[in-house]
């Protein structure tokens, strides 16, 4: 086994497991940069997604100002290419986490990069809930909180899991770019140690690891979505 690796993937073995350039480090960095932005960006996305649905003109709490505000913020952040977003919000990142570079610094732009995408996905998922169900809940005297939690969020549960899966996968994609601000991760390994140094074996192995991560996310997401779906479709 070791002989095989030494012979065919010498550069992969040379990087080692731990240490700044090690595989283990890169994997942990990628997971770290996926996890926290998923939490922060996810929360922001859900909040904005809900706001966009309830505050729309025929929503349960129509509000021109907040609808317009959320809509513009989401559109604006979606329009900025991520690699530029990384650089442009550096001062803000400094303010929040005290540094502009490194894995932790990447959490801020990653969260802000993923949330508008997720917000739109959540918006679409919630809008897939039949307006008749919302109306029925209103006719029963349900409060707006009841409607958001028990009608919108619960009825769209399977759809929300599906869009979360898609978002998480695209977030893994974004982490690859975070190498630009020294955040490390598998993407950085593929580019900096693989591509830039003509070590094709490193590029391939890093890519396979990213694909494996995506595959796991997809399988878990599909499984959960299936489990939580009681709709006739």
């Amino acid at each position, binding site marked *: 086994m070791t002989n095989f690796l030494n012979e065919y993937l010498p550069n992969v073995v040379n990087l080692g497991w731990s240490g700044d350039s090690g595989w283990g480090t890169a994997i942990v960095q990628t997971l770290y940069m996926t996890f926290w932005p998923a939490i922060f960006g996810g929360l922001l996305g859900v909040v904005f997604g809900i706001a966009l649905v309830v505050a729309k003109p025929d929503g349960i709490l129509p509000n021109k100002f907040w609808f317009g505000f959320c809509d513009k913020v989401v559109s604006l952040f979606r329009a900025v290419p991520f690699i530029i977003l990384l650089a442009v919000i550096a001062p803000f990142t400094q303010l929040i986490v005290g540094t502009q570079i490194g894995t932790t610094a990447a959490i801020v732009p990653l969260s802000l990069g993923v949330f508008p995408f997720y917000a739109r996905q959540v918006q679409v998922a919630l809008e897939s809930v*039949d307006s*008749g*169900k919302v*109306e*029925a*809940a*209103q*006719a*029963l*005297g*349900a*409060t707006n909180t*009841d409607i958001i939690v*028990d*009608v919108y969020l*619960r*009825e769209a*549960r*399977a759809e929300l899991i599906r869009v979360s899966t898609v978002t998480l996968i695209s977030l893994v994609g974004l982490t690859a770019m975070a190498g630009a601000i020294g955040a490390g991760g598998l993407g950085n390994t593929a580019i900096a140690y693989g591509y830039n140094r003509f070590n094709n074996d490193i590029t391939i192995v890093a890519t396979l690891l990213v694909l494996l991560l995506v595959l796991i996310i997809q399988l878990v997401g599909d499984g959960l979505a299936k489990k*939580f779906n*009681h*709709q*006739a479709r």
Partner: protein
Amino acid sequence: MADIIKLENIEVSFQQKGRTVTAVKNVNLNVEQGDIFGIVGYSGAGKSTLVRTINLLQKPTAGKITVAGTTLFADHKQQVTPKELQAKRRNIGMIFQHFNLLNETTVADNVMFALRHSPLSDQEIETKALKLLDLVGLKDKANFYPVQLSGGEQQRVAIARALANDPEILISDEATSALDPRNTNQILDLLKDLNQKLGLTIVLITHEMDAVKRVANKIAVMQHGEIIEQGSLRDVYLRPKAELSRQFVGGSLAAIETLKAFNLGKLGTDQGLFQVVFSAANLTKSIILDLYRELGLDVSMLYGNIEVLGNEPVGTMFILVKGNDDQLASVPAFLGDKDVEVTRIDERGIWND
């Protein structure tokens, strides 16, 4: 009986692409406690929009809405706070064409959802939900998900949910329109039963005249956002005044078609055409023979039919009577004494009082 729902001069209009579309125009409607009030009309007549104003799911542009003594809407604005409206809505159950159940929770949870803000304890809420499901005949399906039930069963769950807070009023918005005939009748019978057992006031909108005929005691006919006719089921059904009511309600539609087929042309001066309506109590009376024996009139029967309105069989007959003017004029009074409703109509089947 007191009016439990009072709609005064209701108007609903929408802005659509810069144009104002008026869906409901100047509607006045009084529903008394214990009524089953049918509102019929073709799709797009404004029925749904109108009944949605009762619980303010649709805010009217103008008019006054009073439900069970509380003024909900007047002077172009809502007269109750959102909290009060939520409480009030729990007194007005509503069921829909597409059931609108929550698919991600069980049948029992759907009913309990309606009881979320009731003062009962969790234990009592569960007991009550099961009792309601028992009432609609679905106790054994409490832990099923809605998609596992048939359409008729889903509508029963929706009824149980609508009744959870012991409302005085139930609004049925085309609730049987998506069901097959057998399920439709079962649901209608259930509504009628609830009306009698619980004294529930029901407002039923539908485009199916048969549904109204089966359960309603009062009826309103809508066209282009206006109520063109309203009254007791029997009156509107048997003697519709407006042209649309005649087409739509159609109690005599079949008869009129038949008359047309006879191609009577102009009636002779010694001939009169009468519609005779009799209820179950008069079924055994020999009306035609009496006309001959006592008034010496020649009577031929052109059309006869028996319908069931509510639970009461009502017979309709069209007779052609031969006699002089005085004799013909005496027919309504003569039959009226026998508790039979008589209307003289012209050869086109148009009422001619």
